């Protein structure tokens, strides 16, 4: 059975990665279209010549990092608080926010921002994008961390408090380290979701807040462009290397 599983796993990873691999190969094609002409690096040069792309990438990184940091903190605290004693209202809201269609979240947040900003003469911008990302990310964090908390025995906290720690100390010195892997998993998930979001972002973005998915979307809707292939190849390679490095560090 083990051997069959291994064979299956190879097929599974091929299924996951083959489509992107094909795209990457075509990013070295000199033709704009999907007929192979000859090898060229033109599309990679085009990326670095495009200030809009560079700025959008920078915006995306900022938005993803800041909103991940905020939502991971809020979500972790929330999951822990709910673990101590549930709240039907809060849990219900978390699930409901997860099931709201993206376009609806986008439109309703846009309406909310516009209403509340009108009297204050504020405009949509990078911070509304961050707020929106925090809004939809918290649910993911709570769900992932709650799942982790279910595997943690409540006696762990009790033991800490028996040894003289107060509630806060028990959380910071005992529970938080125990939740570590869950928090990292949640943060990774949210980082990916935030980095990739287009629908909600494009609704709440304003002056100065174009993100990478928005630029990619704009290019792609005008027909497949090898520049997009090149960008996605770069992004995949970048994160692939990051994963390999972190793997090495962990095993060292």
């Amino acid at each position: 059975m083990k051997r069959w599983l291994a064979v299956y796993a190879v097929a599974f990873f091929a299924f996951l990665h083959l489509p992107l691999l094909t795209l990457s190969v075509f990013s070295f094609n000199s033709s704009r279209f999907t007929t192979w002409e000859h090898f060229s690096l033109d599309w990679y040069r085009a990326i670095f010549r495009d200030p809009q792309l560079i700025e959008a990438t920078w915006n995306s990184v900022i938005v993803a990092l800041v909103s991940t940091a905020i939502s991971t903190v809020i979500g972790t605290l929330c999951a822990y608080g709910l673990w101590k004693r549930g709240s039907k209202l809060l849990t219900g809201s978390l699930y409901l926010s997860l099931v709201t269609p993206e376009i609806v979240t986008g439109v309703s947040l846009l309406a909310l921002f516009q209403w509340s900003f009108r009297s204050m003469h504020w405009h949509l911008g990078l911070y509304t994008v961050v707020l929106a990302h925090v809004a939809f990310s918290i649910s993911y964090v709570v769900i992932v961390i709650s799942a982790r908390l279910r595997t943690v025995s409540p006696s762990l906290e009790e033991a800490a408090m028996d040894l003289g720690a107060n509630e806060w100390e028990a959380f910071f010195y005992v529970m938080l380290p125990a939740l570590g892997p869950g928090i990292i998993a949640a943060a990774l998930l949210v980082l990916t979701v935030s980095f990739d979001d287009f629908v909600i972002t494009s609704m709440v973005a304003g002056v100065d807040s174009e993100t990478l998915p928005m630029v990619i979307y704009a290019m792609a809707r005008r027909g497949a462009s090898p520049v997009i292939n090149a960008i996605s190849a770069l992004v995949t390679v970048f994160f692939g290397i990051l994963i390999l490095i972190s793997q090495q560090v962990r095993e060292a």
Partner: protein
Amino acid sequence: MNRRYFLLGSLATLAACSRDPRPRLNVYNWSAYVAPDTISNFEAEFGVNVRYATYESNEEMLAKVVTGNSGWDIVFPTHNRLQPMREYDLVQPLHHEWLPNLQNLDARFGSPVWDKHLEWNVPYMWSGTGIAYNRSLQPAPTRWADLWDSRLKGRLTMCDDPEDMLGACLKKLHLSFSATDHGELLRAEKEALAQKPLVRAYLNAEARDQLVAGDVLAAQMWSTTTQQAIDVTPSLAFAYPEEGFPFYCDCAVILRESERTELAHKFLNYLLRPEVSAAVVEYTKTATANGAAVALLPEATRNSATLYPPPEIFERGEWPRTLPRDAQRLRDRIWTEIKSA
């Protein structure tokens, strides 16, 4: 902790970056509608800082500007969105004394049907919807009705847009593109349903690639998109259908909320310069409303019957009107019915 300081630091840097001493102008335009140096040249010449961002549909842009608090100064709605924008009091009147380059406009756009005296808009770029096809398809399609030919089964795409798609059906029936009559629209729906078994997919720009690869033999397509395909694949051609077809014009307007009226006019006047407009056309392969710019284009572009159809064809074009509420709703239901059939 370090990570947190890093984040705060990068936020502060970002805030510092955006505090530019030069005057600002915020421009919100369709994607792929300027040349790479159009904006930077303007910034350098006028010593200003232009924030330029792009959108993909009129609705996306309108959702933002409709409250009059979007922060944008200039946007580019399609001609038939101008009237609703005026009804909502979203645009401000133009000062012609600040726009001497208006004289460069092609005569046909000096007094367009949607704004006779150019009180509110400066026509920017335009295009038509017609039939893109592979020359191997014989006889070549010349009418919308040719897209109902069973030989095209599985090799035909239509636009994923109710206005264009229903428009083609209406034109096949020799009705107006902007029809609002219940009976006429239902007849158009019948045509669409009859055609659906032949249709490979409802696609917009995505169809371009498949036309080039030869997967698709005929497609309802915008003239500008087709021109890009023809440039790399000479075996493709474009026809403005005989029954009539729609033209769309994207027009620059200054929003009511803008407090930089004078600078906004300078920008519009800059876009109206023949050499600026010609550079945009060369890069994006669109049709400019700027007659003086057309004269500067290379002969191949200028003489492209796809981008700049000759007068006898131009005559057959129709500029879609803004539709009343009920007609919009009926059209949407019909569209949903066609697609889910």
